[in-house]
C-alpha cells in the first residue's frame, strides 16, 4: 500500500518534470523560459523525493533523500537567480526578442 502511494507520487513528480521540458521548448521569451524551467523542475524534484521517502518508510535511506531534497531546494533557486542576473547584467540581446515577448 505504501509502495503504491509512493509510486503514484513519483509519477506526479515525473509529470512536473516533463512539463518543465515542454515549457523550455514552448516559450519564445528567455525570461519566460527561465521562470517555467526553474520553478517546475524544483517542484518536480521535491515531489519525486517525497515519493521516494514515502516508498521507503522511516530509515537512513529516507534521511539521506531528505538531505538531498533540502540541498536542492536551496541551491536550485540560487542557480536560477545567478543565470537570470547574468543575462540581465551581461548584455542580453537577441534580434527579434522584443517583439516575441508580446506574443508569447
Amino acid at each position, binding site marked *: 500500500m505504501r509502495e503504491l502511494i509512493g*509510486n503514484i507520487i*513519483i*509519477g506526479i513528480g*515525473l509529470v512536473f*518534470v*516533463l512539463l*518543465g*521540458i515542454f515549457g*523550455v*521548448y514552448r516559450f519564445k521569451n*528567455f525570461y519566460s*523560459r*527561465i521562470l517555467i*524551467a*526553474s520553478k517546475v*523542475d524544483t517542484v518536480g*524534484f521535491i515531489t*519525486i*523525493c517525497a515519493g*521516494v521517502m514515502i*516508498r*521507503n518508510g522511516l530509515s*537512513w*535511506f529516507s534521511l*539521506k*533523500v531528505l*538531505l*538531498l531534497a533540502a*540541498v*536542492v531546494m536551496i*541551491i*536550485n533557486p*540560487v*542557480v*536560477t537567480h*545567478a*543565470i537570470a*542576473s*547574468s*543575462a540581465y*547584467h*551581461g*548584455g*542580453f540581446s*537577441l534580434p527579434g526578442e522584443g517583439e516575441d515577448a508580446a506574443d508569447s
Partner: protein
Amino acid sequence: MIEYTVHILAAAMVFTTVKILVGPTVWDRLLAFNLLSSKLIMIIVMCAIIFEKHYLLDIAITYALLGFVSTLFIARFVKDKGRI
C-alpha cells in the same frame, strides 16, 4: 515502475541535450545544463532504489553541490564577458 521512471527520465535528458545543442544564447545553454544535471541526480536516486545501495545517495549529494558551484561560476564568468 521505477525502471520505467528511469526510461522516461532518460528520454527527458535527450530532449534537454537537444536544447543545449540548439539554444540561441549561452544563457539558454546554461539553463538547459542546469536541467540536465537535475535529471541526472533524479536518475542516480532511482538507481539507488533499484540496486538498494546507500552510497549512491552520497554521490548524488556531491554531484548536486559540484553542479551548483560549476554553474554559478560559469554564470559569473559569462556576465563579465570573459574577464576574470
